[in-house]
């Protein structure tokens, strides 16, 4: 789960990590009030969306007057911002963050991740701040420092000092930076984060550190014990269909092809999408119905997939383990009784109670394209999209 920059900064502030003075605003007038209260003679107005690349897309504006603050906020709020991470549709800007401008001396990168190679929390730092850390790591790996944290004792001060020295800091700056790293680690650990990134962490002309931009994501599996984080979820940032699907305990991700997919298990669901692609088609979605799919769950899956107007054929591929083919077949029959379906349906069932499942489908008198194997299922779906004989 992701949160907005302004929320991340409030969280970091509560851990005594220095962030610029600023506040979130829902409207241009509110932005103006925030700027007045902040004082000074320069402000930055930042669109708050859960996607990177805002700067290049015009989502971050420097204002030299209060009028400009109001104008930029007016321009941003209520428009869709298209960045390299949002896709063509862009993301609606519902709020902005207004902050004081600071004179920057140097920029660093500071982050923590769950590193999959070491299977531990790892501190990442670089003197090459303000750039994408993946790009820095690819082009100049010597500029990126990784420090693995032993979970038994947590991040130690000496590790922080070592990292601070490694990115070229010296003297008192090492102590200050180490304190920020330690606080960042505590925040990461306490809140069950998966990733936190301060990029850039800057030093100002007067020698202070500031987290100029910050991003944080959290472990969805740990939200049961993180009510404060859960409360910050912004449903406007998520696909309404994905939210609805998760309400039915379905894992749905919309894609842009024409073969709607209903599969059980994430691995088989991906492999099914891949097979469709190999036979020349394109999947319209990822959908994992999970184990123990009841007839209601299958019917909901049908409805959600078929709401997508791009879907020209529906492929159901179920390998029943804890699932049972007869339950799945009942679900299909229920789904087809509940709604008018005007696209061909390809059904591939395998595993537990296969014969019973097939019998239910045959007795229903409904029109299906049967497939015995994964290859048939993918091939027949793609042919059906193209209107060919199957």
């Amino acid at each position, binding site marked *: 789960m992701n949160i907005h920059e302004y929320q991340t900064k409030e969280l970091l502030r509560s851990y005594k990590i220095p962030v610029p003075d600023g506040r979130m605003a829902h409207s241009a007038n509110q932005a103006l009030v925030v700027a007045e209260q902040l004082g000074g003679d320069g402000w930055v107005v930042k669109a708050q969306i859960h996607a990177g690349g805002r700067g290049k897309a015009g989502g971050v504006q420097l204002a030299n007057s209060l009028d400009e603050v109001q104008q930029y906020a007016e321009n941003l709020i209520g428009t869709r911002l298209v960045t390299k991470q949002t896709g063509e549709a862009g993301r609606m800007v519902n709020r902005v963050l207004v902050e004081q401008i600071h004179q920057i001396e140097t920029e660093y990168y500071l982050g923590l991740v769950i590193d999959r190679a070491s299977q531990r929390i790892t501190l990442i730092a670089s003197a090459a701040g303000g750039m994408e850390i993946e790009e820095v790591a690819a082009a100049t790996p010597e500029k990126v420092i990784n420090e693995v944290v032993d979970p038994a004792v947590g991040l130690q001060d000496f590790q922080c000092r070592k990292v601070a020295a490694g990115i070229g800091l010296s003297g008192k700056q090492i102590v200050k930076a180490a304190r920020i790293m330690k606080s960042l680690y505590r925040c990461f*650990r306490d809140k069950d984060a998966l990733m936190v990134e301060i990029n850039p962490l800057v030093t100002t002309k007067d020698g202070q550190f500031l987290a100029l931009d910050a991003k944080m994501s959290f472990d969805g599996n740990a939200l049961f014990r993180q009510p404060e984080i859960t409360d910050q979820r912004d449903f406007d940032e998520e696909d309404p269909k994905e939210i609805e699907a998760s309400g039915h305990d379905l894992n749905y991700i919309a894609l842009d092809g024409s073969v709607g997919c209903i599969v059980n298990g994430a691995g088989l669901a991906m492999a099914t999408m891949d097979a469709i692609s*190999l036979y020349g088609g394109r999947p319209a979605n990822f959908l994992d119905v999970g184990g123990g799919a009841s007839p209601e769950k299958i019917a909901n899956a049908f409805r959600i997939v078929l709401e997508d107007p791009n879907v020209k054929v529906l492929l159901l591929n179920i390998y029943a383990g804890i699932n049972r083919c007869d339950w799945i077949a009942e679900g299909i029959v229920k789904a087809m009784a509940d709604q008018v379906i005007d696209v061909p349906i390809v059904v591939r069932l*395998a595993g537990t109670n296969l014969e019973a499942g097939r019998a239910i489908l045959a007795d229903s008198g409904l029109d299906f394209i049967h497939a015995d194997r994964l290859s048939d299922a993918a091939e027949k779906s793609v042919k059906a999209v193209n209107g060919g004989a199957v």
Partner: protein
Amino acid sequence: MSILVNKDSRVIFQGFTGQHATFHAQEAIRMGTQVVGGVTPGKGGQTHIDRPVFDTVKEAVVATGADVSVVFVPPPFSADAIMEAIEAGIKVIVVITDGVPVQDMVRVKRYLIGHDAIIIGPNTAGVITPEECKVGIMPAHIYPKGRIGVVSRSGTLNYEAVEQMSELGLGISTSISIGGDPVNGCDFLTLLKQFSEDSDTDAVLMIGEIGGSQEVEAATWARAHLNKPLVGFIAGATAPPGRTMGHAGAIISGEADTAQAKMQRLAELGVSVVQNAAEIGQTVRNSLS
């Protein structure tokens, strides 16, 4: 032979009296698995499906000689249950539970250091040595006994591959799903090493996914050390970057995480790479000749 579990394995279930654990314990018993009891704190002394219930894993181990545990304990309490099993001397701990917090698993893996135990999962379909021992939620009847070792992240894609192989007359020595989480108890490499030494396994099938570098690490080791064919598949060639595809660990965070990049690396490392999941069985058979 086989790896991890066999007909002599003495199995307990943690969270024994819950609905799912009960069902799958019965299924395991039906296949001939030696289920010797279970643990549900607070219900010690009772009998459940004709097996004794204990309050602690330690008591269960002392009373029954259990050496394998299947964990069905809900996510908030899973880490505690796994560490309890480690401390009690259980050798193979299979964690079926889906949704265990990642940082809990980071701590569990730290606790594991210095103990002679292996954790499979979490979020796994489990382990099966056909006709001997089933510690998981897979349908036993689709797993014929044979000489192919299988390691996968996914459960259902594992079933799919096994069916393709069985249609070609190939059976399974042991099959393991390691689960779809980014921090999991056991990686592909650990299991490849075990299969390498198993005289009942003629070839190994590794079914990976987008995200992480486990498959490449395993294949790198295999190139120098594995004395039998290795067939590989990576699911998720059509997955969009930055999205979690059902499994928490199935996410493309960089170029090296993509299915295409991983399959290319695997091929360079001498793995027989399957491009189309529908051809897994055939590729395994070809690798044997």
